[in-house]
């Protein structure tokens, strides 16, 4: 049975990701594909997304849905409805309760939109809270202020969301241990079901990276960031949030099923400009180009399959490389590389393939190797990239 699954590719279900690139403004650190809302393009974008879903639906069970961007909730209600409807119908038709997430900004999630999401079957909402410090929000170039976050969470609860996530960012220029722990505390007070805590990255081409180069912002000290990461695990842990991935914490078993698909290197369909799909061992990323996307999918002669001109990158790894990549992804999880799962999925014995890497990193105290899994230790999580290099 294990072997059958390893070779599957068309067997079980897939996760669905929908990328809606519009945002009110671009945040200083963001390197996802997003651009200011183009009112005129919305009808065509909606038409294109619907067309792409229709054409590219692999016809397999939908395991999870995640609608992200950009900010999906900047779309007007009717447009948002039109995008979500086709998924909603499929999910209802299957008749199985699945995780259905939509991202939202604390300042753009009003009651109507939240109710619309509920109506469409969305059962998890993820807010980009990022910080409860006004100064840090300004550095990050976020449009909301801390009070919006509490408001957004209570609106979501009122609309019936039982699964709410807050994203937070540490390592922000000017951030102190005190202000970070304060943000954690205020997030905990709002009682979310899930918290994602990301370390700020200076990505090429972002406003923040430019400011850093010009000496306008000073990055957080590496040692302080390490302490912030440790405080995150202990503070959230004390509040009942279990760390299940390097940056992700859940209460009451509400792990993000959709992201787990990524971390286990399982299959997903990505719809929308710049979205990534991983189907049948092929990972494909489409171009970050709304115009080209619209022209292709909403054009007079919309294609019957993913148009080659829209493909930005396509990659099909060999069997071993795929196994290695899978291991690296799984190491992010606190469950680690579960030996049985790994073998079933890749056809390799993890302890054989990674013997030297395991030995070296276990000796350095970065890995634990017992209980049927290979896991990063706490020290190993802080140095995860170094451990992962050895698995590649």
């Amino acid at each position, binding site marked *: 049975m294990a072997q059958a699954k390893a070779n599957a590719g068309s067997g079980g279900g897939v996760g669905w990701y929908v990328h809606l690139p519009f945002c009110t403004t671009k945040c200083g650190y963001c390197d996802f594909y997003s651009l200011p809302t183009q009112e005129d393009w919305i009808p065509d974008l909606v038409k294109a997304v619907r067309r792409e879903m229709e054409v590219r639906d692999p016809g397999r069970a939908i395991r999870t849905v995640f609608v992200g961007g950009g900010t999906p909730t900047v779309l007007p209600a009717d447009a948002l409805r039109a995008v979500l409807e086709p998924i909603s119908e499929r999910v209802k038709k299957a008749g199985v309760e699945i995780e259905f997430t939509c991202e939202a900004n604390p300042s753009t999630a009003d009651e109507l939109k939240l109710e619309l999401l509920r109506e469409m079957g969305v059962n998890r909402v993820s807010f980009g809270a990022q910080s409860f410090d006004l100064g840090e929000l300004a550095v990050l170039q976020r449009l909301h202020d801390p009070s919006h976050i509490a408001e957004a969470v209570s609106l979501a609860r009122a609309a019936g969301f039982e699964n709410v996530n807050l994203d937070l960012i540490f390592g922000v220029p000017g951030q102190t241990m005190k202000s970070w722990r304060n943000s954690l505390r205020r997030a905990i007070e709002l009682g979310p079901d899930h918290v994602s805590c990301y370390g700020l*990255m200076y990505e090429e081409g972002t406003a923040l990276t430019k400011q850093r180069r010009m000496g306008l912002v000073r990055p957080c000290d590496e040692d302080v960031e390490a302490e912030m990461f440790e405080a995150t695990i202990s503070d959230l842990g004390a509040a009942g949030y279990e760390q299940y991935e*390097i940056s992700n914490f859940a209460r009451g078993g509400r792990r993000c099923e959709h992201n787990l698909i990524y971390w286990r290197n399982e299959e997903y369909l990505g719809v929308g400009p710049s979205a990534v799909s991983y189907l049948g061992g092929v*990972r494909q990323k489409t171009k970050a180009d709304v115009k080209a996307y619209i022209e292709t999918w909403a054009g007079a002669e919309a294609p019957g399959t993913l148009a080659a001109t829209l493909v930005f990158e396509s*990659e099909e790894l060999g069997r071993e490389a795929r196994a290695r990549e899978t291991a690296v992804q799984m190491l992010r999880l606190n469950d680690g590389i579960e030996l049985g799962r790994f073998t079933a999925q890749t056809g390799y014995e993890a302890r054989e393939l990674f013997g030297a890497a395991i030995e070296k990193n276990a000796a350095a105290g970065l890995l634990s190797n017992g209980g049927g899994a290979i896991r990063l230790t706490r020290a190993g*999580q*802080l*140095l995860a*990239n170094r451990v992962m290099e050895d698995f590649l």
Partner: protein
Amino acid sequence: MDISRIRNFSIIAHIDHGKSTLADRLLETCGAVEKRDMRAQYLDDMELEREMGITIKANRATLRHEYKGTRVPAGEYMLNLIDTPGHVDFHYEVSRALAACEGVLLLVDASQGIEAQTLANAYKAVEAGLAIIPVINKIDLPAARPHDIAEELENTLSLPAEEAIFVSAKSGMGVPELLDAIVERLPPPKGDSTKPLKALIYDAKVDPHRGVICHIRVFDGLIARNDKVQLMGVGREYHATDVGKFFPKITSLENLTAGDVGYMFAGIKTIHDVNIGDTVTHASNPCDAALPGYHPPQQMVFCDFFPGPGTTSIQLREALEKLWLNDSSFGFEPTSSAALGTGFRCGFLGLLHMKIIQERLERESAVDLVQTAPTVPYELLLPNNKVIKIESPADMPSPDKFLEIREPMIRAEIVVPARSIGALMQLADERRGTHKKTDYLSTDRVVLTYEFPMGEVIYDFYDRLKSLTSGYGTMNYELTNYKAGDLVKLDILVNATPVDALSVIVHRDKAEIRGRRLITRLRKEISRHQFEIPLQAAVGSKVIARETIKAVRKDVTAKCYGGDVSRKRKLLEKQKEGKKRMKQVGNVTIPQEAFMSVLDPGDE
């Protein structure tokens, strides 16, 4: 041609004062090159020379000038232009080129005036007993002050101001007058074609098809095709397969006679079989004595080249060999470093020569180089009274193994604006300079003569001079002798392991500051490891400076890449690949840049 109708001369000038342009104009005016065939600056034929604005290898042309004046007999004269290398590193080559001449054109920019190199070259010409024609160039520029400059020449070099010839090499203005002056004022060569052959090799180059071409000046006797000749300095015999002149194209002739300047092919395979300054004579009927002043090339700056990322030591060797075939003064031999593996110790005439070789290697052979800090050769007096030379700090034995260490000294002439004297003196003081004298060129420009240990000026001195003087300062230097000094070897230890490629020889008084600077720079280059890394600078067993690179606390990408798993993987692969290209010293990985950073003088 009658020897009285020959004139042999060089143009000597400071960089940028227009030597190549003047040479071009002389060729064109004499009809040696048609105007339409004229490539800008005909005589500088290497791409790199053009880019660096300097002439690296001496070049040549024989010009015919129809003299219509009356001071000497009218008629056709043969003018042999012997181009000299234009940089401070090539003193010896310059001196040999001058030895082939009877006179020089001392070319000075009409707005810049006399520079350090002008002086140094003029002194050489005077020492060599050559006639000097002062030539003031660029007189058509708005800032030109030709009469002031002529005064400067008279005051400084006792060249009568009224003898100066004003030209614009660019427009050709004054060039016909200059040609007449060459005929009138420069003496014809002396020599006797009936005596045994005595010719000077003043330059040599490689012709890709015919082997080495020697540029020669015949002093006595006659050299003809098929003569059996002997190179007296290296003591080897060859058959002269072809002789002739440059018009400026290579033109075969039956023979060259006393006073002539031309070329000789003699089936010489590599440039290293010939030494500039050597004397050519007939094997069967040699001249009584070789020409004076000959010595083999003297390498004064050394550094090691190691293959950088993407280059193997075999590729590096091939690249070095290729260059070596074209450059008689460059040398290399295999060496090895515990830190950097197999590489090559290379010797150069000076620092500019080193930079040229390094750039040519990278450009012409596309090799990646890791270069160690340049060093000068040191002499060690051993207890048995023998003197040995060391060319790398790594070769320096412990102090109990020698009685004395001596460093090469130079005499430097530095021309600066008078307002920069203070700053320059301070710099010279930092570099252990000894002031010899100060001469005023004019009220606002001075020549300072200093003695320096060469090791103190080999890398950033010139840059510092330039920045102190807003670009106006110029310097020329010449090796004088070796002098005993209180010199020590400064070792750098990374995680308690000495890194041989980072060692330097310094004066004891400067060891601490140099060591501190070195490890501060290293601290920035070496990334944090999973353990603490002590960095130490030590003289013998005494640690004189230390720093610590803290252990890494965090190396994790706590970011959601969503479905873009490939991107995350590629970032890790890149990081891993980067580490592979670093050098492993003990259990510390040191990036190539760290070795290079030693070269960067940084802030004092």
